[in-house]
């Protein structure tokens, strides 16, 4: 049996669009999340909604409905000002609002919402490194959730002070201060951020050997962004950032 290109074209189109049509009829074709949070498959919490499945596209209203957390608590915890915007606010919006924090290796985003929900409801969750909670969220948790001493210490350690913001204004804009270029960076502002390169560390007085000892590898190129390097090595940015920042601080003193 032989096929010509016309046959391949027709079969390809029929299979792709036929497959889509068939799965649409069977209600399997979904291009968006149906906002049904997955549940724990076993153990003590079997059948309960799992905060790990909260997606960036979930609104605070979806989360409130799935986990029974008051909308007001969610909105206030994450620094939203306008109560009328709480319900429709999507978790992924946090990353855009608190983008300045992300550049410092601290993330207040969907992961923070998962963490907040898990603590609020006393549910288990594997928290990713670099996930921070706003101070307002910590206060709400201390007041309304049953936390252990260890958990309180942990959330206080990984909390950040956020200005109250609207759902659209980035913190960087609210600060209103221009970011100096690396060459102009004052000694006191030598903080490793999401866009800091190995070269900048060397410019700040850290030697190549000291950096390579920490990353346990040769620096591929001095100009490479440390965060990109950590991504390619599948290493959390924070695990490199903290010891490197200690080195920078030591050199600055």
């Amino acid at each position, binding site marked *: *049996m*032989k*096929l*010509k*290109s*016309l046959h*391949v*074209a027709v*079969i*390809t*189109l029929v*299979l*792709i669009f036929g*497959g*889509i049509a068939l*799965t649409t009829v069977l209600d*399997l*074709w*979904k*291009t*968006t*999340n149906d906002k049904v949070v*997955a549940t724990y*498959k076993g153990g003590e919490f079997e059948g309960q909604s799992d905060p790990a*499945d909260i*997606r*960036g596209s979930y609104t605070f209203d979806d989360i409130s409905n799935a986990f029974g957390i008051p909308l007001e608590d969610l909105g206030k915890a994450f620094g939203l000002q306008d109560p009328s915007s709480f319900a429709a606010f999507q978790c992924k919006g946090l990353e*855009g609002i608190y983008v300045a924090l992300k550049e410092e290796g601290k993330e207040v985003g969907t992961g923070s919402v998962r963490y907040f929900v898990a603590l609020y409801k006393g549910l288990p969750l594997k928290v990713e490194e670099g996930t921070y909670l706003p101070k307002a969220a910590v206060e709400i948790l201390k007041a309304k959730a049953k936390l252990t001493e260890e958990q309180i210490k942990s959330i206080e350690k990984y909390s950040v002070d956020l200005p109250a913001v609207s759902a659209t204004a980035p913190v960087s804009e609210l600060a209103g201060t221009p970011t100096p270029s690396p060459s102009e960076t004052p000694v006191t502002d030598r903080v490793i951020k999401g866009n800091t390169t190995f070269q900048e560390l060397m410019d700040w007085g850290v030697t190549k050997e000291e950096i390579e000892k920490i990353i346990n590898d040769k620096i591929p190129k001095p100009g490479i*962004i440390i965060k*990109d390097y950590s*991504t390619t090595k*599948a290493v959390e940015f924070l695990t490199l950032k903290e010891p490197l920042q200690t080195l920078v601080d030591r050199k600055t003193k």
Partner: protein
Amino acid sequence: MQQQILIKKPSPVPRTIKKPKPWYRSAVQSFFFVLVALISLNKVLEEAGMAIPFLSQASLHAICPFGGVVSIYKFVTVGTLIQKIHESAFILMLIAFLLAIAFGPVICGWVCPFGTFQEWTGKIGRKIFGKKYNHYVPVKIDVYFRYIRYIILAWVVYVTATTAKLMFQDIDPYFALFQFWSDEVSMTALIILGVTITLSLFVERPYCKYACPYGAVLGIFNLFRIFKVRRTPSSCIDCKACDQVCPMNISVSSGTAVLSHQCISCMKCTSENACPVAETVELSIKGGAKQ
């Protein structure tokens, strides 16, 4: 009748013979390129309340079958898909596998808009460099470079499985091309896109050849696909037209069937296209082509 004579007594065929080239592949490629571009745009228009009616408002991740591939581990172990990936990507992955079992990586050669984009860019390179185009990389090195995409595939699958995040997005030039206006696109992805565009001026489909992890997955199907590109040695005049036209630099003339993991099933080498002898290079099941 004339064709039969050619087959029975293979003799050099004048290379100047012109035959109409099928346009179906170009049409399918253009269709999918425009469709994906419009869907990407529609997502933005929808957020601005100006969505194009009757057109999907899906995200790019929702219509990329590779999202299904990188989600397999989480789907099997936890029962859910990774972030940003939806059931549609999984369904497209299964359809792509079905097509690959039958015809090999037709998704690469006929559907993938990023492959099409590289081909279009390559046309500029072909005009500039003529016959030298697509022959710059020494064969001895090239043979090994072609396996880099399997290393990338292993890394992407491992990182996605361990983080449950769509890490590939940060290095994906396809995402960068169709979302270049979005702040979701990383600088690394934009740089890789720029490098790919530049390399496309010298090498045909450089990303597909050396870096595409999805092409690596589909390329494996070339080993056991049902319909293979087969060559009939008895009627072959050894003109090497099939080798010269192959975008992936496969030596079609050196065997009776193309088994290379690099074949994208574009059918440019077949008697419908480049091969000047009728019924000599064809897409067929075993025994379909003359031995």
